[in-house]
């Protein structure tokens, strides 16, 4: 029988209060852990999605919207810009790489993105099977698309107009799956990638093999070759394309956004101003918009964090009340321990240990509960799995939460423990006798 076992006996002796103390702390810790896991996974996911993209060029409008639609593939695009913009950008000496994106359609909620092979390299995406698209109407699908649609290689599908589910489908211009990607933990997992020309085809935009300026993208060159051979029979149809809202009379090839990587740091100085001076264009910096997004999300998270912290304080207070009340009844016990030969330090430590054990139980259970909730949430919502949210991932900040909870437990026990430390045993004995 040790002081430790005695402490457990006291905790067991007031079961209800002990359970309540632990429960309160568990809930507070679980909430903090949950918030931390979601916030950090969301942040690192957004970081990964935006990494390597220095600038996004698109139609005038909200820069946030341009980034949301062009980088993270949420929200609607700001509009379209002429294809010539791509050549304009590629002619700039400060531009290292310019990748076009053409949006407008989806297949079962997964966005169809007309682009070039360079887009895959941006995210280090590798093929799980099949091959890369090399002509219009060939599609490479992300891992989440493959899992969500069960599309096999060679599978044909038609896109639906719009960026969400629903919308009329483009029955006469089916895509063929030629490749499937390995999971990347980025937005690519949710995308259907195809040459830009596919998107024009679907929306009946006549496009000819245009002049050079594609030195940077050999695959695009190749695409154009094939396009020349096989796809010339597509004539302009007046399709109600998102690609070209309003100006149906004359449909020109357009793109939705262009992702830019600078060749040199000078690009950051010159390019955004240059783009924004063009009447129909705007340039948005992902890093800037991401910081804004995170600060907006952060306000919500902070509010919840404050509530969770309040809950932990409540838990600490309940530990204090329980311990204080229990010690009022245990004065005789404490005097007896001293009479047996326990030192002041030992009885002080015994009370601290009681607070610490409560806190440790609450902290560990809270940690487990937090991860269990993450696990259940990830099992229910595939979006979370895509985000890379996993119950088995431990964040270093959780250690801090753990230490914080233990600290609160110690703090709650400190005043009662000090009181025990200072007790005059002779007086207690006289009162108890």
């Amino acid at each position: 029988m040790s002081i430790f076992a005695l402490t457990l006996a006291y905790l067991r002796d007031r079961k209800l209060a002990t359970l309540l103390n632990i429960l309160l702390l568990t809930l507070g810790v679980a909430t903090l852990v949950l918030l931390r896991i979601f916030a950090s996974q969301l942040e690192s996911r957004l970081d990964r999605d935006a990494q390597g993209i220095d600038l996004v060029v698109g139609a005038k409008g909200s820069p946030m919207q341009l980034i949301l639609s062009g980088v993270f593939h949420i929200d609607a695009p700001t509009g379209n810009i002429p294809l010539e913009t791509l050549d304009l950008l590629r002619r700039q000496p400060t531009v290292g790489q310019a990748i076009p994106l053409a949006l407008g359609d989806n297949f079962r909620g997964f966005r169809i993105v007309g682009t070039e092979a360079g887009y895959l390299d941006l995210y280090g995406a590798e093929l799980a099977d099949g091959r890369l698209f090399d002509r219009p109407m060939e599609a490479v699908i992300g891992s989440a698309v493959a899992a969500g649609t069960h599309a096999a290689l060679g599978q044909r599908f038609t896109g639906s107009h719009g960026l969400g589910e629903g919308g009329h489908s483009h029955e006469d211009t089916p895509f063929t799956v030629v490749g499937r990607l390995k999971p990347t933990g980025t937005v690519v997992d949710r995308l259907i990638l195809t040459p830009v020309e596919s998107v024009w085809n679907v929306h009946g935009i006549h496009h000819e093999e245009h002049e050079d300026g594609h030195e940077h993208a050999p695959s695009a060159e190749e695409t154009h070759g094939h396009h020349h051979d096989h796809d010339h029979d597509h004539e302009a149809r007046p399709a109600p394309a998102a690609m070209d809202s309003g100006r149906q009379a004359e449909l020109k090839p357009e793109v939705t956004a262009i992702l830019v990587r600078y060749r040199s740091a000078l690009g950051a100085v010159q390019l955004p101003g240059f783009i924004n001076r063009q009447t129909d264009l705007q340039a948005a910096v992902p890093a800037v918009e991401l910081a804004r997004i995170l600060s907006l999300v952060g306000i919500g998270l902070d509010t919840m964090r404050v509530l969770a912290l309040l809950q932990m304080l409540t838990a600490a207070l309940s530990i204090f009340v329980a311990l204080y009340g229990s010690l009022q009844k245990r004065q005789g016990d404490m005097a007896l321990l001293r009479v047996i030969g326990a030192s002041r330090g030992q009885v002080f430590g015994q009370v601290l240990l009681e607070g610490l054990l409560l806190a440790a139980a609450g902290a560990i259970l809270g940690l487990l509960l937090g991860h269990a909730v993450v696990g259940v949430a990830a099992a229910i919502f595939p979006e979370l799995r895509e985000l890379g949210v996993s119950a088995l991932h431990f964040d270093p900040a959780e250690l801090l939460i753990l230490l914080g909870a233990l600290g609160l437990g110690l703090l709650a026990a400190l005043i009662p423990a000090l009181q025990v430390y200072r007790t005059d045993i002779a007086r207690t004995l006289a009162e108890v006798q």
Partner: protein
Amino acid sequence: MALQDEPLLELKAVHHAIGGRTIVEIEHWALRPGEHALLLGPSGSGKTSLINIVCGLVAPTGGEVRVAGERMTGVSALEKDDLRRRRIGLVFQTLRLVSALTVRQNLLLAQTIGRRLRDEADVDRLIGRVGLSHRAHGRPRELSQGEGQRAAIARALVARPALVIADEPTSALDDANTGRMLDLLFDSAAATGATLLVATHDERVRGRFAHRLELAARA
């Protein structure tokens, strides 16, 4: 043997006053090993106060207390705690056991703290000696008055103290139980080699002790 001759308890010019009023005043008194003694005096004569001083729970305003040759006065609180832990077992009339633990657990705890070792067989033997084997796993509040007293004696002896001090162990008991209580104290002390110092104003126990320290009533 020199050690044998050394008093187990020695009081030298011990004086204690609270608020200018003298409560304890003893010129010299010594208790040798094996000399079970009675601390006798009417209510208010300072018996409990003297016990607190001997145990190091109260520092006297003057004088010196030695337990088994070691000073209990004029040393640090930690040293007092340590000396008490090693040498003294205390039996109170009402304060007996830690409430959250069973009788057996109480004895194991007292053994761990007092003797810094774990000897379950010894604990069980002691429980058997005081006749509580059937109540070993009972909680303190479930014990009868007599059972509680016996448990308190076992708890005081489990750390094998050289000096066992009991404050009013019999004042609440009837004649028969007082006799049994004293038998138990003497038997247990004999078994563990402890020396008894029993404080009481109970004249019934006077005849059982050869040695005594009488405190006068204070006006």
